[in-house]
Each structure stands twice: as structure tokens, then as C-alpha cells.
């Protein structure tokens, strides 16, 4: 019986059906239109990045079907926003006049919706865990999906807005601490959703949303106290196509490391409760310890792979911008520390076969190291990475 359903699932992912053709066509046409519209601002490297992104997106949509509707909705909303700006003469103040922009999809509004939805999702996930309600869990998941959509729309529209304010300011929104925080929460949420869908782990949602909500809290403080959301032009060192690939790769790493830490937290709590009362309802509702342990591994492995790429890309960019691929700059050095930390984690797990509690603790502490590399370096250490000082 079980193998029956398994093989059905198996058949489904293998076939290359009509849906995939439509999907590929959608991505290709969309990319070509974008290239036609904005290609004059792009150099050859950026053309190549666009091409690679299109291929990557086609692959991702096939690998993870649920990403297809997300892409479509994000595209439609972003195009609607861009179109509305155009109708208002491409002035930034349109975000105060046009209804859609003002309340929904100007970058600032979209990001505020995202913030609100993430926090609501955390509450709802925990409520679902408490109520044992499948329905509430579904509501929470829907909230995370919507938050991710709003976040992506916010980023796309912000990208356009930077050009509307002043063509010279125009840049992809992954260049200030404020912008990368949005990237961080969106990527973390999407990666989490993938695993939730695959392993049916809705009860972990609240835990993962803890990190996301903390980041949202930071975004809110940064917005209201420091006005960090104001779009600023780029310093010369950041004007490079390398940024478009280096930063996202880095944040896939940060995102997965955060998820691993939160799964680690859930693991530790579950293990503790289980020790006291093996038949507790909480333990039954949580995923099995083995699954959580494996999820930690999967996230760290994925993150480690992308973090490796990001660090190498960073070194190559440094070679082009500063004249040396490695300068022991604090940000660089902390990236190495993070990398070494997870390399050690993976060695211990793979070769020594450690599992469970110590690895969960280590994943949790790893998040502290990661957070310092991400945030602490900007706060406490000076160096060549000049973006986003607090």
C-alpha cells in the first residue's frame, strides 16, 4: 500500500509534462521581456546572470512545484506596481497617491505586510501546536507563503524604485543591512516551507518563525528608529555585478544555518520532554527525533555548500575590488570562522557518527557564531566591508 503511493509520487516527479513546458516558457518569456526592458542598464556579466537565473528558476520550479505559483504571483504583483508607477509619471511620490502602491505593493507597504504576516504566522503556528489543530497549522503555513510573496514583491519593487528616485542610485536591493535582512527572512521562510512540505513538519514552524520574527523585529527597529529603509546610493566599492551573486549565496547559508539552529532547539526541547514523559502529547505531535536530527544535517549541508560558494565568490570579488582575494578583513575572517565551525560539525557527524543532543547544541551555538558574522562584525569591528554600519 505504502509503496503504491510512493511509486505514484515517483512517476509524478519524473515526467516532463505540459505543465513543465508552460513553466519553462513563462520563465523564458518573462526573462526576455525583462531583458528587453532593462537590458540597456546591464553589462555582459549581468546578462549572463539573468540567463543563469532563468535556467535556475526553471530548474527550481520543476524541482519544487510550489515555487511556480509563487513566482507567478510575485511577477504579476511586481509588474502591477511597476505599471502603476509608470502611469503616475514614474515619480516616487506615486507611492503616496496610487491606492495599490500606498496600501499594498509599494516596497515599503509590501515589506510591512511581510513583517506583520511573519509575526502572525509565528503565533498561529504555536497556537496550532497547542490546539493540535491541523487547520490552524494550514493557516499559519498560508501566512508564511503570503509573507514570502510580499517580501519578494517588496524587493522587486524596491529595485525599481531605486531607479525611479534617481537612475544613478539604481541597484539590486541586496546592498545595505536593511535590504539583506529582508533577503534573509524571505530566503529562510522559503527554505523552511520546502522542508515543511516535504517532511510534514508544521509543528516546527513556530520555532523557525522565532528567528524570522527576531529579524523582523530588527527590521522594524531599523526602519523606525534609524530610517534605514530610505534608499541610498551605492558606495563605489559595491557597484559590481559580483554583489548579485555573492550576497544571495551567502544568505542561503545564513538562512539554512538559522533553520538548523531552530530545529536544534526544537530537538532539545522535545528530547527533554521525552525523557520526563515518553508518552507526552507534545512529543507525539513533534516530528521524530531522528527526523529532526536529519533536518539539521540537511540544512547545514545545504548551507555549507552555498556558504562555500559565497565565500569563494567573495574572495574573487575582493580580488577584483581590493586587489587581493584574502586580506583578513573582519567580515572575511568571520566568514571563515563560520565555515570552519560547520566544517567541524559535519566532520564530527559524518566520521564520528555523533547524533542528537550534542549536535543540536552545536547547531544552536553555531547560530550565535553566524549572527556575529552577519551582524556583530558590522556593529563592533571595522573593516573593508563598509555596508550597513549601525
Amino acid at each position: 500500500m505504502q509503496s503504491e503511493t510512493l511509486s505514484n509520487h515517483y512517476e509524478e516527479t519524473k515526467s516532463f509534462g505540459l505543465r513543465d513546458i508552460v513553466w519553462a516558457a513563462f520563465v523564458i518569456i518573462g526573462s526576455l521581456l525583462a531583458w528587453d526592458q532593462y537590458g540597456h542598464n546591464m553589462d555582459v556579466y549581468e546578462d549572463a546572470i539573468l540567463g543563469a537565473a532563468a535556467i535556475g528558476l526553471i530548474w527550481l520550479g520543476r524541482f519544487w512545484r510550489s515555487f511556480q505559483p509563487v513566482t507567478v504571483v510575485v511577477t504579476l504583483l511586481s509588474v502591477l506596481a511597476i505599471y502603476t508607477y509608470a502611469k503616475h509619471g514614474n515619480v516616487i511620490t506615486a507611492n503616496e497617491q496610487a491606492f495599490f502602491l500606498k496600501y499594498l505593493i509599494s516596497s515599503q507597504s509590501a515589506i510591512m505586510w511581510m513583517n506583520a504576516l511573519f509575526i502572525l504566522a509565528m503565533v498561529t503556528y504555536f497556537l496550532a501546536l497547542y490546539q493540535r489543530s491541523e487547520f490552524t497549522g494550514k493557516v499559519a503555513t498560508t501566512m508564511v507563503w503570503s509573507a514570502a510573496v510580499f517580501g519578494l514583491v517588496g524587493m522587486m519593487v524596491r529595485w525599481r524604485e531605486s531607479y525611479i528616485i534617481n537612475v544613478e542610485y539604481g541597484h539590486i536591493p541586496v546592498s545595505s543591512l536593511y535590504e539583506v535582512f529582508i533577503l534573509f527572512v524571505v530566503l529562510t521562510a522559503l527554505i523552511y516551507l520546502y522542508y515543511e512540505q516535504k517532511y510534514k513538519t508544521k509543528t516546527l514552524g513556530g520555532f523557525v518563525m522565532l528567528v524570522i520574527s527576531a529579524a523582523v523585529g530588527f527590521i522594524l527597529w531599523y526602519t523606525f528608529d534609524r530610517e534605514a529603509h530610505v534608499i541610498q546610493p551605492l558606495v563605489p566599492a559595491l557597484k559590481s555585478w559580483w554583489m548579485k551573486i555573492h550576497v544571495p549565496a551567502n544568505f542561503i547559508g545564513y538562512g539554512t544555518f538559522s533553520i538548523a539552529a531552530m530545529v536544534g532547539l526544537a530537538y532539545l526541547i522535545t528530547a527533554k520532554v521525552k525523557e520526563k514523559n515518553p508518552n507526552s502529547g507534545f512529543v507525539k505531535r513533534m516530528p521524530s527525533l531522528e527526523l529532526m536530527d536529519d533536518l539539521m544535517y540537511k540544512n547545514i549541508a545545504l548551507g555549507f555548500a552555498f556558504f562555500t560558494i559565497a565565500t569563494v565568490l567573495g574572495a574573487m570579488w575582493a580580488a577584483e575590488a581590493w586587489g587581493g582575494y584574502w586580506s583578513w578583513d573582519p567580515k572575511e575572517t568571520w566568514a571563515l570562522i563560520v565555515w570552519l565551525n560547520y566544517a567541524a560539525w559535519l566532520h564530527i557527524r559524518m566520521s564520528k557518527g555523533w547524533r542528537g543532543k550534542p549536535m543540536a547544541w552545536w547547531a544552536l551555538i553555531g547560530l550565535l557564531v553566524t549572527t556575529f558574522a552577519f551582524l556583530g562584525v558590522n556593529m563592533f569591528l571595522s573593516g573593508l566591508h563598509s555596508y550597513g554600519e549601525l
Partner: protein
Amino acid sequence: MTQETVHSAAPRKQRVLLDFLGSMNLAVTLLVMLSIASVIGTVLQQNQATQDYIIKFGPFWAEVFNSLGLFHVYGAAWFVLVLVFLLLSTSVCVTRNTPGFIKDMKQFSEKLSLKALQHQPQHTEFTSKDDLQTEQARVVKTLQAQGYKTKVHARDDGSVTVAGLKGRWNRLGYFFTHVSIVVICIGALLDSNLLLKYRELTGNLIPETRTISLKEVPQTAWLGPENTSFRGSVNVPEGQKSDVLFLPYEDGYLVQKLPFMVEVKDFRIEYYDTGMPKNYESDLVLTSPELDEPIVKTIAVNHPLYYKNYAIYQSSFGDGGSLLNLKVHPLLSPVENPIGLQTAVNKVEPLKTPIGKFNVEFNDFRLFNMVPTTEEEHAKTGKKFHNNGPSIIFKVRNEQGKAWEYENYMSPSLQENRWFYMTGVRTMNSEPFRYLFIPADAKRQKTRFFKFLALINNPVENTRIFKEAFPQSEQTDDKTYALQIRLMQQLMTLFRAKGFDGISEFINKNVPEEERQKVGDYYFGQTSFALQSLFLDVLKQEGAQPASDAEVSDFDKQWFEDALTAINTIPHYGPPMYFELESFKHIQSTGLQITKSPGKDVVYFGSAMLIIGVFFLFYVRQKRIWVNLRQAENSGDQADKAGTDITVAGKDNKPLPETETEFERLVHLLRTSSH
């Protein structure tokens, strides 16, 4: 590991050492040590002056930290040692594991006995109706369709084992990641200054620590083309060229001769409308005997010039010796007689004055001084920054070596709706500048100020003016009158020497306590009367004819107050000279960073290996399947259509939760295909 014991002819001690080097415990320990060292290197500011460390930590701890190499962690011997052990450990691990892994990659283990198969982590058995040959072909086909490579082994007893192997690149992943670490380290080593360290130890290389001209740098600090890797910088003024490079080395520097000449035609900074710099660019011409045509290129941040295995980067900028046309105003002279001075940034000018000899070092010229705007200004202009105009930075040093550093602005700036020429002074680098605000006159010039100042300094003129303003009355005898005039005169001298404080000080010293109040009031009254008289005379000279102070305009009143404030602080301004910047010719220099990095491509190659290896390691899983086929025994009545007994066994070298279900799925496929 088994083959190791077989070949093991090596003495035991060596084995123990190798085991230790290749052990996981050592590897993880090294990784952790490297992390901790890196943390220290970022938390503790590196490569600062020894002095700064002593201030921060006290002499004892500064010494302790220094001997541990904590101030130059990334060059410290123990840090290099950790790296070397990392290299050794990885190499040993690779050499030890690779043969086994290669064997494992090739091996199908098709000869495993049925018993062994039944002991594999996954196994199951079933019977098919078809005969052995049909089933065997089908199994091979199904496995291959699932991405397995297969090998068939027929046994003497008539049974057949089909062994499948998938994802053997996982093993390559292990090999790639570890070899890549070695490759990256080798690349980094090629780019390190190990060779220079060696030359320094053997004594034929001595870094230069003094700031001297290039010609004076001794040969022992020069490097030629034999130096294979370097990263240094040089400042080239616009219109000039350079074929040398300065490499920072320990506490000093080395001079690297380049096989080409770089000429800087022009340097530009572009700004955004916010006042932030948008771009730095240099127009370069590179000439070399090896080139028929010089290379002409504009470099910018993120857009270097590559020539052979050299790369030239835009890294900084500065003043390239701007020409300065100055006027030096003596501040204690009784007549206005500024002297002209033609000089340039980076020059030192000796200055002989009645109050001693000085050396003036012109350190910098700034064309723009962007300062944040106030809130009202922001509301008015919409700009976040405004430009305070050009300034010069220079030091005046007396014969004893004491120096005052100045920052003088060329144009006046608006403060509380009045225009002032700002000049800042400090005696310590760590202090902020204290500013003297010279009020501008109605023509927005400093002319009136220096006229007024000279007048105060001039006792002869003073006497004349005081006598005019304060004629001798009937009741005063000649002697008293002369005393009164002289008092005013002396008050002026005191004021100029030490400001209003000087007058108070004089009273405190010379007047008995009980009379101080009265005398003080009288003296300050006289002082202000004297100053006002002098000011009125200045106004008269300018052509205005105010009969009394009542007719002085508000502007002039305010100016008078501001002038007194300024003059009052001149005694704290250092040597009494004011350097006025009359005109200039701006010459910038561009800071080029030039590197030769033969290890770069090696490091990139290693990095590519690392990335590929990591993906193989995490996303390719090595799996084995064995399908043992035997003539079914319980064929009974239909002997001609004998079925086949099948045993399927599987092994995943990294058992995962999905291993089980995947095995079931495969078994399911094998079963359905046999119906």
C-alpha cells in the same frame, strides 16, 4: 583500512605518528584552533603602533600579547604552524583513504555470498514466476533505468548475483574537498612573503622604516623582478609616472621595482547629488619595453587594469602636491605687512620671524569639505551636505620641535547668519581642532580684521587715537592725563598678550583684594572704551563718519563683538601667524594598488574543486544493490516453468531516513516488472 595492515612494513612509531596526523580529533582540534585565532585577529586590532597597544593594555600585557604574536596573528609562527598541520593532516587523510575509496568506487562486491546479502542493512526476498534468464535481464534493465551500474556474477551452483552501484562520485567528493584544501594552501603559500622572510633572516633584506626620498632608500630594501608575488601601493600625482611600488613589510616598507611604467594622466572623483562619492577613476598609460603600443585605460573601483600577471587597482587618492599661494599675516605686528609664500603640499618651508625660526609643513589640501547640513538648511536647500570649500592642513614647528597643526579654510562659512573664516588649531593628533572664527567684513573679506588687529598692536597710533577720543580736560593735570593714556595703552598690550583673562590676572596680582572690584570695573571700562575708539577709527578710515557709537550699524556692532571674541583667543592660537590661502592649483594623486599573484589561479582552481567536491559529498549518495537470483526450489508440479527465488539487498553508505523507503520503492519496481 584492511590493506594497510597487510602492507604495513613501516615501523610502529611512524604508524602512530601518521595515525595521529590523519586523525579526526586532530583535524577538528585544528579547525577549532584556527577559528579561535581568527577571532582574536578580528577582535584585537592588528598591526597598530606598539605605542597604541601600550596605552590600551598597559606595558605588561602589551608585552605578553606581543610575545604571543597576538598583534600580528596571521603572520605569527604558531598560526603558520596550525596551517602547516592542517595541511599535513589533510594530506595524510587523503593519502590514507584514497586507495580504499578508489577500490570502493570500482568494486561491485558482486561475489558476496547469499548469507552476506541477508546481513545487509536492507534486504527482502520474494519469488517470481519467470525463469532465471528472463528475470536476470529484467533486473539488469530495471537497475540501469534507475541509474545503477551493474555487474553480473554467475556462481557454480547456478545462481546469479546482479550487483548494482550508484553515486560512486560521492567518494570523489571526499577526495576533491580534501585535495582542494591542500591546493588552496599551496596557492596561498605561493602568494605569501615566505621568500622575503627567508631573505630577511639571511640578512640581505632590510625593510626601511624612515620616511625618506626614493633615492635615499638603500639597496637592501629594494626588490627586483625576482620577487614573484607582491601586493603594494604607490601614490602617483596627476601628470607623473612611477615604476616602483611600496610594499608594507613588518614595521616598515620595501621598494619593488616594476618592469613597466605607469603614468597617471588624470584622476577624477564623481559625486552623487547627496555629496557621497560615486566613483573614483584614473586615466592610466602603461608603457613597457615589451609593448609596441602603450596600454591606455581608465581604471575605477571594481574595474582594474590587467597586464600579464599584474593587476593595477584604484585603491585610494590624495593630494599630489597642489600648488599653494599663501599670505602669512603676522598677528602681533603693528603694521599690516603680510608676506607672500609660494609653496606646495608635501613641502616644508623654513620661516624666519622676529619671534623665532619655524618650519611649516604643508600636509594636505582639500578641494571639498562636505559637512552635514543643519535641519533648517536641509529644509531650505533639500541637500544633506554642503560644501565648505577648500582648506589646507599644515603644521608649524618651532625650533624645540613643538608643533601646532592647523586647518584653514579658504572661503568664509555661514554661522548663525554671519560669515566667518574658520581656522582650527590643535597640538595633539588625538584632539579635535579648536576653531578661531575670523569675522568677515561687509565685503566678506578679512581686510578689516587685520587692519583692526594691527591698530591694536600699534602703540604709537593707539596714543594718537586715544588722545583724539579722550582729550585732556581742564581739571586734569598733564601728569594724570599722561598716566591715563598710558594705562589705556598698557591695557591694550595686556589684552593682546593674554586676552581679557590677562587683564583680570594683572588685577589679581597687583591690586589688594578689597579694591579689586572697583579697579576691575574701571580697567575693563577703560579697555572697552579704548577698543571702541580704535574700532571707530577703523570705520573712519573706511570712509564712514560715525560721530558716536550710537550711529554704528548693527552689522558693525556685531562685527566688533565677533572680532573681540576672535582676538581674545589669539593668545591660544600658537605662534602668532595666520596663513591665508589666496589661490591654488589642485593636483591630485591617485593611490594605485599593484599586485602580482601567481597563486591566485591555483587558489581559484582549488576553490572550484572544493565546491564541486562539496556537492558530490552532500548530494550524491553512494548506494549498492545486490539481486541474487536462484532457481526456485518449490516448483513442484510445474517443473518446466520453474520460477525464480529472488533476494534483494541494499546498502547506503550514509543511511538516511529515506534510505528505507527508497529501498522499498526499488523492490516494488523489481516486483512489478516481474509480473
